[in-house]
């Protein structure tokens, strides 16, 4: 023991770090901040360290070349001992890091921790969030597969919308005129050198400010922040009701950090690494690229925005949102901290969470995308063909062959881009069906040039049979009056046995 103490002394004479470290570790924190709500920051830091270690390990094998990256990932997955596990740890670590950073941010926001004097800590935190998302996107590019390749195309398309500098921004982002070797190399530099370097620097700043300014006290309803008196009040509080951070509060951080690491490892073992999906070969176009989990909401948003809204939403939306986050501590730097007395703050968090959750959920089954194989893969359910005439069956054939099924479902199978057609005859009369098929409209292409009159007649005859057994199809009453007869559809398209 004496030897260890001597060696320690030898180093400390030269480094002189023991005293400041002890001081930092034992600085008094308000007693009630030793809470499970205050563990997310340290958990994010823990995962960041895991990402650095696993990232370095992956770099031992990974080749950042457009020609070889995909094969080197395959080698990691299948040939290198435990390579799959390190990839899985890094991939799951990335998902967990974004989740934890977001939870940390919500906690800080709801506990009013961004208010005076911690404005800069919040701003640096916002920058850290953006860098984390930058790491997630660039990491997805390094997993150089089909999704990465076409995802870059989507990124370039978004960048091209920027007024004036759009085309320049695309070439700068891609490192050339197309997605190729230079593109991967520059995302490698970003993912491995530039953003991690900035992350380390800003994490240091963030932590330094937490130490210098003290951890945010537990917010009490009615205890208002006032710039003139806050600092004294805080020191008073830590003196009166404080406890040393080590060991009073840190044990919860330690337990949670270990738990999160265990959760990452468990996911890595159970679910395995992410991809890579198909080879990044641009001549293979049978692919439907999808972003990673934390960008799915954006993918959904881009599908659902009306075309006229897209450019403003893409360009103005993020700028306004990020500016709002950065300016937040200046807009409400004083006053109430407790979420119990900040209903708008709570509602904002809930609104954003529900929006992102809904969009992510929608992106899970992409109702806006045509099902490319529905026309050949999903047969017309038998019940729709019972007791139909030859013409109507011919129409069902036209319905499949002309890929109507890719966007319209029958019996729950098929695309959801357009409305389900199980009961379309109740909604549209014969004339309206003909018009809709030939002229399109309402986000449906016009089929006039691709259907012969015979095909249209057959198709519409089939569509007119699509109504529930007890419900008669829609009919044009004025036409009945003009023709003075029972509508033709009554005789021809209604299955016998109906009402």
């Amino acid at each position: 023991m004496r030897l260890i103490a001597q060696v320690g002394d030898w180093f400390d004479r030269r480094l002189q770090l023991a005293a400041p470290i002890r001081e930092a570790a034992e600085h008094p924190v308000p007693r009630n901040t030793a809470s499970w709500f205050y563990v997310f920051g340290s958990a994010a830091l823990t995962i960041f360290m895991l990402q650095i270690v696993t990232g370095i390990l992956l770099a031992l094998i990974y080749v950042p070349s457009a020609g070889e990256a995909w094969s080197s990932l395959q080698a990691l997955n299948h040939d290198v001992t435990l390579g799959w596990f390190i990839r899985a740890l890094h991939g799951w670590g990335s998902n967990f890091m974004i989740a934890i950073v977001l939870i940390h941010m919500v906690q800080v926001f709801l506990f009013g921790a961004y208010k005076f004097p911690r404005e800069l800590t919040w701003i640096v935190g916002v920058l850290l969030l953006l860098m984390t998302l930058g790491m997630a996107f660039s990491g997805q590019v390094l997993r150089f597969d089909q999704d990465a390749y076409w995802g870059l195309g989507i990124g370039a398309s978004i960048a091209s919308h920027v007024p004036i500098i759009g085309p320049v921004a695309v070439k700068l982002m891609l490192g050339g005129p197309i997605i190729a070797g230079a593109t991967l190399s520059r995302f490698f530099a970003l993912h491995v050198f530039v953003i991690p370097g900035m992350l380390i620097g800003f994490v240091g700043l963030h932590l330094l400010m937490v130490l210098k300014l003290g951890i945010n006290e537990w917010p009490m309803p009615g205890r208002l922040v006032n710039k003139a008196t806050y600092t004294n009040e805080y020191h008073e509080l830590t003196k009166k009701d404080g406890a040393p951070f080590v060991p009073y509060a840190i044990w919860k951080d330690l337990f949670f950090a270990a738990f999160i690491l265990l959760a990452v490892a468990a996911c890595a073992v159970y679910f395995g690494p992410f991809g890579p999906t198909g080879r990044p070969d641009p001549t293979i176009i049978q692919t439907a690229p999808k972003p990673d989990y934390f960008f799915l909401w954006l993918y959904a948003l881009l599908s659902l925005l009306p075309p006229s809204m897209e450019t403003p939403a893409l360009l103005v939306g993020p700028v306004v949102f990020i500016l709002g986050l950065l300016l937040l501590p200046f807009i409400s730097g004083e006053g109430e901290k407790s979420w119990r007395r900040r209903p708008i703050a709570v509602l904002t968090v809930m609104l954003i969470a529900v929006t992102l959750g809904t969009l992510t959920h929608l992106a899970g089954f992409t109702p806006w995308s045509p099902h490319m194989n529905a026309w050949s893969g999903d047969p017309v359910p038998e019940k729709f063909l019972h007791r139909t005439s030859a013409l109507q069956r011919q129409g069902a054939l036209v319905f499949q062959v002309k890929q109507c099924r890719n966007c319209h479902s029958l019996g729950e199978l098929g695309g959801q881009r357009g409305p389900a057609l199980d009961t379309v005859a109740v909604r549209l009369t014969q004339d309206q069906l003909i018009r809709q098929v030939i002229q399109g409209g309402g986000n449906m292409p016009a089929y006039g040039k691709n259907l012969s009159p015979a095909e249209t007649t057959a198709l519409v005859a089939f569509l007119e049979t699509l109504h529930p057994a007890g419900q008669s199809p829609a009919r044009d009453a004025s036409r009945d009056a003009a023709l003075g007869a029972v509508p033709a559809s009554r005789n021809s398209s209604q299955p016998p046995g109906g009402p």
Partner: protein
Amino acid sequence: MSNENTLSRRGLFMKLGILFNGLVASALAVPIVGFVLSSITRGRSNAYLSWVPLGSVSEFPEGETRLATFRNPNVMPTDGKTVDTACWVRRVEGEQFQVFAVNCAHLGCPVRWFPQSGLFMCPCHGGAYYRDGARASGPPERGLFEYPHKVQNGLITIQAGELFTPGASASLVEKKPSCA
């Protein structure tokens, strides 16, 4: 020792030292910025574009649309398969062609051709186009991108070399009459 109006010898040297470093830094900044921006500056005046053969006209039956591939004119040794590009070639009749980029005019996903319904459909966000490339439905704001092309000695060649993006490629396509 010194008030605000006097400049000591060492103070002067420090300022000169800062100035000297500033000069060296600006001199070095020229090649550094030049390197960083090289992908932009090289591409000015369409230096990336060249005419690339797609194949013999006879490979494309009249009235049909076929997938063709070509090698991007600018190749770096590390590019791998990424320089092989696909495009949709529509032979209208005789020597009249249309060559479309596979990239959807919405956000660049690869569109697929369905000859039965005469539509290009995009798997990402549901964009659809007619056989002549005109927008049919979905989020795209315009029709499919078209490569400038020419037919010479029974060969069809296209002018290629840049990725089509909805903002960036607008000027390039406007030279041609609209496909719609």
